[in-house]
């Protein structure tokens, strides 16, 4: 291969459109370059490619078909449409993650409509749209349904703003639809008529997920739909669907690879029980199982026949006891991912440790987050037990009410390959319950031992020492979530100075002030975003940041009853589109 392109890359890297104009010794014609580049899928690689020289920039933009925009406000629809001309698939994310915890006003923004309008004009061949934490109105859905004749896949994760009417437009008009995946919806009961609007000859559906919509759909329409969509492999229904209805669906679709059941609580006759048991037994391809609302020890055994191939079991919508979990896990030897609620207790987690040697991911959610009696849930013992038996663990989300430094040190020694470590000790600022010391050593051990760590959430009583450790050791860290922690500005400074790959930093209720905020001036342009709420920031500090860094958007939301000086909620993100025009009055753009 001609070495010249590499040379020009060294000279012109990080300088898009600089003297990297048409290379005089262009080693191959555009078509070849484009052909080669069209084989590159990773958007990170593509972004790197586009920086080599102008030829490569153009070849890349003409061949990109998948668009990933991690923050919808970092760029405008117009800029995107000008640069990329052949987009078939778009992933767009909107609100900051803390909106999941109701920390943003309802009309904060991230409305997809302006994007939809632009896409309708620029990308008539659009096939896929994946949205996360965006507001999607019925109007947008109608525009979608009418504008893209080749449209195949719609995925909405934590989105709101739409009703039955919007979904009806999709199901009525998108004749080639293969995927309709609605996850973690926060809408109220929007109505279930949309399911009945799939035309009678429509049969292309492969993925259908409406588990988080609380509306009643017509079971007859659903049954007909499932029976004629022979390629259906993912079906996740909501809890309106009963067990015996589920049985009828399974009879039509035994080849499902992913199933989200409906309600698991129903009085069944012995015959019905046998039928559902045998229906599950026929599901030989099942890899993912979820739903299971109200499942009890009497009904869980009907699942056993479908569990041998399961790799992901999501029991986080069920309040399961330890014994029930243990018996179920005995049938799931191939489990890689497990989500449960803490009702299973440490005892249940012991069963996880002994039954799931291949486990890579564990999430333990609190069944009752406000149980102040501390009588229920899991402790450091359960986590330890899992770490002893599941050495391949790399992703953990663990809500607990007590923890010790020693336990965490042991846990990461057992499982050094963590890439995602999210520990939530639910009482803010709680120390090591045995020694009464801060939990600094625990997270220090995580940072030091888990060299591949990409995501970390810390909790408990933490001093600046924790952040010194993180800054010193967590060289691959990309996402950090901090709450009720730290002693001074120094904590945040250590992280900003020390973590080269940091992209998302979200902080709440920490004693970090303007000095800490401003120490990251240069860094924020290399990050996707920074969130700070209930810290010690002032309007003055935020204005200074905004003035010094014009390519950052600095948005402040003031709480009710707050004085003129405090900046209660601050959201900082890089953008080439300038300040956004759609911010509601409560969001101040500095």
């Amino acid at each position, binding site marked *: 291969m001609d070495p010249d392109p590499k040379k020009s890359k060294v000279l012109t890297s990080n300088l898009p459109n600089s003297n990297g104009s048409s290379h005089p010794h262009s080693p191959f014609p555009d078509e070849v370059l484009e052909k080669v580049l069209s084989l590159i899928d990773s958007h990170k690689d593509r972004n790197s490619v586009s920086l080599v020289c102008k030829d490569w920039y153009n070849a890349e933009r003409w061949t990109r078909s998948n668009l990933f925009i991690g923050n919808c406000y970092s760029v405008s629809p117009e800029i995107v449409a000008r640069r990329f001309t052949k987009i078939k698939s778009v992933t767009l994310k909107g609100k900051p993650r*803390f909106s*999941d*915890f*109701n*920390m943003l*006003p*309802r009309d904060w923004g991230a409305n997809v409509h302006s994007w939809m309008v632009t896409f309708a004009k620029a990308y008539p061949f659009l096939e896929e749209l994946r949205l996360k934490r965006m507001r999607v109105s019925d109007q947008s859905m109608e525009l979608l349904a009418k504008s893209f004749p080749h449209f195949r896949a719609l995925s909405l994760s*934590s989105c*709101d703003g739409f009703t039955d009417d919007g979904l009806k437009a999709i199901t009525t008009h998108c004749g080639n639809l293969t995927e309709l995946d609605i996850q*973690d*919806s*926060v809408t*109220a*009961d929007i109505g*279930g008529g949309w399911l009945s609007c799939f035309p009678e000859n429509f049969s292309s559906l492969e993925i259908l997920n409406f588990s*988080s919509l*609380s*509306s*009643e759909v017509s079971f007859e329409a659903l049954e007909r739909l499932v029976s004629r969509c022979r390629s259906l492999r993912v079906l996740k229904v909501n809890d*309106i669907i009963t067990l015996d209805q589920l049985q009828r669906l399974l009879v039509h679709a035994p080849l499902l690879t992913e199933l989200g059941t409906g309600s698991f609580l129903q009085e069944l006759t012995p015959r019905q029980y046998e039928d559902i048991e045998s229906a599950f037994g026929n599901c030989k391809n099942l890899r993912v199982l979820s739903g299971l*609302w*109200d499942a009890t020890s009497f009904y869980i055994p009907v699942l056993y026949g479908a569990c041998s191939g399961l790799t992901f079991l999501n029991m*986080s*919508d*069920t*309040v399961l006891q330890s014994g029930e979990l243990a018996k179920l896990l005995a049938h799931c030897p191939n489990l890689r991912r497990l989500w449960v*609620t803490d009702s299973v207790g440490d005892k249940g987690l012991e069963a996880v440790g002994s039954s799931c040697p291949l486990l890579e991911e564990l999430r333990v*959610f*609190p*069944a*009752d*987050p*406000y*149980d*102040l*009696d501390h009588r229920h849930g899991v402790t450091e013992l359960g986590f330890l037990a899992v770490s002893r038996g599941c050495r391949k663990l790399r992703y953990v989300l663990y*809500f607990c009410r007590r923890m010790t430094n020693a336990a965490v040190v042991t846990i990461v020694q057992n499982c050094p390959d963590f890439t995602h470590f999210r520990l*939530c000790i*639910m*009482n*803010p600022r709680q120390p090591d319950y045995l020694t009464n010391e801060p939990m600094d050593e625990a997270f220090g051990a995580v940072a030091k031992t888990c060299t591949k760590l990409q995501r970390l959430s810390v909790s408990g009583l933490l001093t600046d020492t924790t952040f010194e450790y993180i800054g010193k050791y967590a060289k691959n860290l990309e996402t950090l*979530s901090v*709450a009720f922690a730290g002693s001074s500005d120094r904590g945040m400074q250590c992280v900003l100075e020390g973590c080269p790959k940091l992209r998302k930093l979200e902080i*709440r*209720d920490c004693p970090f002030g303007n000095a800490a905020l401003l120490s990251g001036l240069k860094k924020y342009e290399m990050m996707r975003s920074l969130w700070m709420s209930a810290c010690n920031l002032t309007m003055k500090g935020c204005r200074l940041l905004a003035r010094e860094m014009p390519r950052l958007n600095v948005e402040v939301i003031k709480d*009710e009853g707050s004085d003129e000086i405090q900046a209660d909620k601050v959201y900082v993100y890089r953008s080439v589109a300038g300040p956004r025009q759609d911010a509601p009055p409560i969001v101040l753009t500095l």
Partner: protein
Amino acid sequence: MEKNGLGSLETELRLGLPGGGGEVEIKNEKKRGFSDCYGGGENKNQVVGWPPVAAYRRKNVFNGGKMYVKVSMDGAPFLRKVDLSMHKGYSELVKALEELFGCYGIGEALKDEEDKCEYVPIYEDKDGDWMLLGDVPWQMFTESCKRLRIMKRADANGMGLHAKDLLKGLSKED
């Protein structure tokens, strides 16, 4: 004040709901839901959004998050669902039910002494018993209600329920 899973007034650090900032979807009211139910609306110690359990993460048992229960109405073809955590008391709930089914009599029954309304709202509690709406304090109701039914008064009378009882229960709510 009775101790319950949502926290008592005696504790210093109040743990609010993820929804403590308000289910602002409806009527732009802030700090609705349980924070107000427990008179904690004015307490600045309430911690919004903590523990960080996402609002969409519905749970079966009452946990301070969304509390959807099914509602059936005699004569209506479809079930609906209401989120009990979005309402502060019985009168709000009844109003929501009226809007959901387009039946504007349910509330009347709870106001008048006479049996004017054609319908009576009842609910099934944790023990599987059918109870008249309004008998117990609101928070106890939300903890124990598994589903609602708007029953025809004609059927209700046969079970010996009276408007007087409805009124009595309702006066307990503030």
